[in-house]
């Protein structure tokens, strides 16, 4: 596939429908919005990529504290530069769509929170997570003591095998107790 022709072909459209959780309309809208982000000369080229800086200008992502992580997680570049092909973009939208399952969402949430990409949520990851949520100004940050206590509590709650980190299954287990997680973890264009 890898199409970014300014018109999305019918065959491609049905293929995308099958491979993602998105509806036809959502895919068409995604295509439109993606093409808008491309510079003029690339609008008709296939396999065009939108750099991370442009992705971050999307209004749906602009105020999201995890926007960079989102780009890095869904980008398929190596080395990872956070840029999106149309396929990457659809993968992202699919994971955050209305119909994506708890498993998919919690899987991606885990990857987004795994700042050091080592496959598990360590104290460092959790600290960064909390910082993302609390850092607005110097006085809204948690104190070292509060942070330590918070991380201890989280590990106590989630770290079942007591290895000091939260792995994917432990994370998914905790998340499954939040009945509203699926509908909250949503980004829709």
């Amino acid at each position, binding site marked *: 596939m890898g199409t970014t022709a300014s018109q999305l072909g019918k065959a491609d459209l049905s293929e995308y429908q099958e491979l993602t959780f998105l509806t036809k309309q959502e895919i068409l809208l995604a295509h439109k919005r993606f093409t808008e982000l491309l510079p003029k000369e690339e609008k008709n080229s296939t396999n065009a990529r939108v750099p991370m800086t442009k992705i971050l200008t999307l209004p749906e992502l602009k105020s999201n504290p995890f926007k960079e992580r989102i780009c890095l997680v869904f980008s398929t570049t190596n080395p990872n530069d956070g840029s999106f092909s149309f396929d990457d973009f659809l993968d992202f939208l699919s994971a955050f769509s209305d119909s994506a399952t708890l498993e998919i969402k919690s899987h991606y*949430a885990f990857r987004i929170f795994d700042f050091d990409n080592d496959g598990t949520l360590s104290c460092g990851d959790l600290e960064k997570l909390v910082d993302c949520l609390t850092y607005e100004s110097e006085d809204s940050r*948690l104190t070292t003591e509060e942070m330590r206590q918070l991380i201890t509590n989280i590990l106590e709650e989630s770290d079942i095998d007591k290895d000091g980190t939260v792995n994917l299954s432990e994370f998914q287990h905790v998340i499954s107790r939040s009945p509203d*997680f699926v509908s909250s973890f949503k980004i829709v264009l």
Partner: protein
Amino acid sequence: MISQCHILESVCRDLFTSVWEVKHPSKTGQAESAESAVQHSLYLGLSTQHCITASSPFSTQQTNSSNKRSKWETSVVEHKNHARELVRKADLSQWDALVIMSGDGLLFEVINGLMEREDWKQAIQTPLGILPGGSGNALSASIHHYSQSLPAWNEELLLSCGFIICKGLVGPLDLVSVHLASTQRLFSFLSLAWGFVADVDIESEKYRHVGAIRFLMGTLVRLASLRVYQGRLAYLPVKEAPKPPKGSINHPPSTTQHPSHCLSLPCRLIPNSSPKLGSRPVRTNLNQNTVSNSSNNVITNMRPEPKKDRKATALVDSLLPALDQPVPESWTVVKEEDFVLVLAIYQSHLAEDLWTVPEATADDGLIHLFYVTAGISRPALLRLFLAMEKGAHLACGCPHLVYEKVRALRLEPISPQGMITVDGEVVEYGPVQAQIHPGLARLICG
């Protein structure tokens, strides 16, 4: 399970014995018989399974010459709605009080069981006591707070509440009747919540420390994907009425039954028209005021009945029109339609460590309505919850947080997915409205 019950029994026995002795060290003779009364009056249960116990006459109040053998009964509640069934069918005449050791959820069932009875009017007068035993100990924390004690958690809170029950002082308890779309009516004693608060995991109660405690993985994740809920909110505000001229207005509780006289102004007592209100059924009054405002046409179902009218067998929600009817003119409709959370609470604490309404009491006849509009930043929301532990959230000066004292409210969610909780229990999602019934029940409190 049985052995666990006995262990707890003796723990409680020791607990209450020592409490009694501490309070009355010299009166050993009296203490003994009183002590046995106390010992037998509360027995409990299990943390994994909820327990409800009926308690017996508090002979601590009387000098115990007759040494009445106190009766007590413990029922272990095994599944959801078990308590409700028990209470609905129980012979309440032999009991002086019902004490629950568990979380707020069990009390919710008990209250609703009582209200489902034919003799609900007497049944709901049964004094209710609560001991913090499970997750969700908001009422215990509130009662402890009303006794003007310093904040306490865990065993200290249990001790304090146990002590309050020993003292056996009973006061009025406001209940809120909640209407759901399915025409189901529930009675609530603690809160009604929608949005972020409803999502907060009750499990997190277990992890109590002073500090950033309410934030566990689930909350962080929810904060990360901070959701906005669309909906419409309207409420009947309480305006601080000037002290009424003597003799012209009924005692304050009847303010809930006055229809609105104003089209565009919020509901207010109008001293001039009141002499009639006191003497006749308000129904007549409604007609007399029709001339002055056409708003009454909207209020088709609003037939407030004065408390003296005992003809109705079911409790009437005089402030609430049918859910599919528009709200009365006297109500304030909130302009914004994007919320992070809406919380109606009628006790002081939403949880052991969430001191939500610093000056609330169990019988203030008020619903304290909080809502947070969309646009609040994550750190600001977190800060609010952190501040709430000390009751300082109102002082945060957050422009997105609004607090109003109301007597009734209606919430119509527009977002198709979400959760509404009543007293921490998830209820059917859809339009909901509620009004307060001051002092409908009775609570054992300090």
